């Protein structure tokens, strides 16, 4: 398997797009996302023997992508700046989220505006489906930090979404 290019290519084809988008949500930059993906796949193929089959292969690969992305962010020294966020409830109108391009695009744009630390936690919880125990382990923080960071991140995301609505006249 290690030197089997055909098998590697099949695996790559199966997971490349999903994993690229995982990486992209962390770094919000196409070139960086591809760098991360490349590094992650090379690392995965090199260490394919360490895949024990306890999790699904996709889950194993995703952890490699996420770890690579987090290392990438660290080496790029992107500041995990803390946003001094208002704890008072955000006053926003009810938004009707329909499954259409616009809603997805709006959320993606709002995600990009989030500070790195918020986006990381939000992505892990909301998009990649990890629970707070897992996120705490991945990021090396406490479970309560994961929870509070997530809530703040989500609130911030909604703020950005509401701004879009007021600015661009979306919603009702």
């Amino acid at each position: 398997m290690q030197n089997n290019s055909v098998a590697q290519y099949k695996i790559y084809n199966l997971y490349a797009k999903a994993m690229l988008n995982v990486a992209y949500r962390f770094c919000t930059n196409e070139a960086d996302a591809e760098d991360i993906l490349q590094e992650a796949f090379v690392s995965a193929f090199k260490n394919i023997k360490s895949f024990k089959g306890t999790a699904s292969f996709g889950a194993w690969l995703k952890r490699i992508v996420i770890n690579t992305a987090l290392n990438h962010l660290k080496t790029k020294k992107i500041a995990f700046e803390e946003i001094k966020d208002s704890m008072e409830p955000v006053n926003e109108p009810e938004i009707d989220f329909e499954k259409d391009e616009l809603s997805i695009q709006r959320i993606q744009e709002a995600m990009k505006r989030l500070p790195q630390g918020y986006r990381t936690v939000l992505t892990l919880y909301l998009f990649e489906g990890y629970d707070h125990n897992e996120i705490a382990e991945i990021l090396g923080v406490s479970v309560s930090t994961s929870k509070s960071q997530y809530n703040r991140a989500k609130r911030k995301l909604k703020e950005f979404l509401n701004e879009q609505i007021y600015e661009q006249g979306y919603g009702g």
Partner: protein
Amino acid sequence: MNKAMEDKLEKFIRNNRTAFDTQEPSEKLWDNIHFQLDGRVEPINYLFMWRAAAVLLFICSVGLLLYINRPVGKTTPEVATDEFTTTEQYYIRLISERQQRVLAVANKYPDIEQDFESDWKALDSSYKDLKEQYTKYKSQETLHALIQNLQAKANLLNKQMDVLQTILAEQKKNNIDI
């Protein structure tokens, strides 16, 4: 309201999870990965190539040694010499047969015999030279020249025979006339 909004946002994202995968990997990405993986196994490839090169060199060396010291090296010229010897023997037999027939008649005509003798001697001496050259250098050109020389001798004898027979025929006529 806030709670409802939260649920909706989370629900929307979770329900439309794959729709958020809007990025497509570029075509060169696999090439890069493949290249990097190949680069990793390069030392193994180098080792294999060195081994292959060593084996190849060994085979070539043995082959070359066998070629240089082959016993066949001597037989090829021998075969040529054998062929020449057979050809030479054939012509020599042919020549001596005709020579005897010519001599049987020619003794009676010393004038004609003289012209023939000088031609014959010229061919003979050149034949000796050629044969000397051939035993030294074994060149194909000399071999051809030798065979041509023998053919010339055979032809010369044929012509001499023709001449003598014409004379004999004329003599017979004269004898009848007389």
